């Protein structure tokens, strides 16, 4: 214990080295409800962050951990790079609700890791693709208390397949980040 290699920043020059073909399109073995998760990443001054790497990992539509399969890239995982407007967009399938080893009830959610210049270590959290009242018993929603609202994506009123979720690294309405 205690002999880990420390984290360092991803820096500004990762886009070529970490490029994945269609990285923002999540692959699964099966099918399900197609959804898009999109939003912008902002700094403490409200400026869009144009050099963030957003990675997501999620359960399949039945709530199971996506296993190894025929795909070359891992099922259930995505990598997106923010554009000049700070926007990331992930095309995926709606994750199923799942139950933890101790019987905890997890609402439909996507696990998120964000790397950026200026972040010496990643920030990690989970975003809910569910209405606020459907997340009430979720372990993270409970632990986050008043800050849980920063983790709930909003479903577009017109296009119900689109979920919007902005990330604020710092300041007013700072996104609730986690340590697990």
């Amino acid at each position, binding site marked *: 214990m205690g002999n880990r*290699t420390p984290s*360092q920043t991803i820096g500004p020059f990762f886009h070529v080295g*970490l490029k994945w073909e269609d990285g923002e399109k999540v692959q699964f073995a099966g099918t399900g409800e197609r959804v898009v998760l999109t939003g912008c990443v902002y700094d403490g001054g409200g*400026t869009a962050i144009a050099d963030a790497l957003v990675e997501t990992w999620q359960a399949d539509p039945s709530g199971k951990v996506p296993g190894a399969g025929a795909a*070359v890239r*891992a099922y259930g995982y995505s990598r997106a790079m923010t554009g000049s407007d700070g926007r990331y967009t992930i095309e995926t399938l709606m994750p199923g609700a799942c139950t933890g080893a101790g019987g905890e009830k997890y609402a439909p*959610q996507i696990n998120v890791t964000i790397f950026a210049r200026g972040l010496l*270590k990643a920030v990690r959290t989970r975003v809910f693709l569910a209405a606020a009242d459907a997340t009430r018993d979720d372990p993270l929603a409970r632990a986050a208390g008043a800050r849980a609202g920063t983790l709930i994506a909003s479903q577009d009123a017109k296009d119900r397949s689109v979920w919007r979720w902005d990330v604020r*690294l710092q300041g007013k309405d700072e996104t609730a980040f986690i*340590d697990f």
Partner: protein
Amino acid sequence: MSARDAIEIDPPYDFPGYKSTALRAPKQPLIRVAPHPLEIAGPAFSRSFAKESEADLTTWGKSAPLGEKMILVGRVLDEDGKPVRNSLLELWQCNASGRYAHPVDQHNAPLDPNFLGQGKVLTGDNGEYRFVTIKPGAYPWRNHPWAWRPAHIHLSLFGNAYAQRIITQMFFPADPLLPIDPIFNSVPDPEARQRMVCKLDLEQGIEEEALGYRFDIVLRGAKSTPTGV
């Protein structure tokens, strides 16, 4: 301090010596939670996700890149010393002149048409990996007057569980820029800092062709979460 370490190993978010942390470091405490079932599992990449050619950065161009050719070998282990097998390791770096093949890099140093600086491997049965590359150059940055980054290689690792995911940098021994690099020195523990420095290992090189370096990487272990998962 994170709950799982007896001493802090990772840098803090807020580190005034590295100016870009000022507006990007979260100010609220992290919320401690038991890991979600997905966080103790991890994405499974097929071996074909990393092409064999991606382990040799010197064969990307039409001819060999400029610079000091080097072989980088090492093992990926967890904190309990167990090998991390079949796990994705990605690498990127600037060329021997200190310039990234990247549109944002405006450093007035030449691009090398024979060097992209991107590599990928999956670790073997003992957690081992091997890259062929060239030693990257130092490069200036605008963090403070006379700021130069020591030579470094960026590394991205997945481990076998999402909780092990990490991005770090590898440095070279006896680099005079290390003591004045805010990013390297953002790691509070001097011993932990040295774990980001590779070792010369001549016999891993190629006689009369390439220098050998060794860099072992240690990821979070099985007992390292608050709930012991």
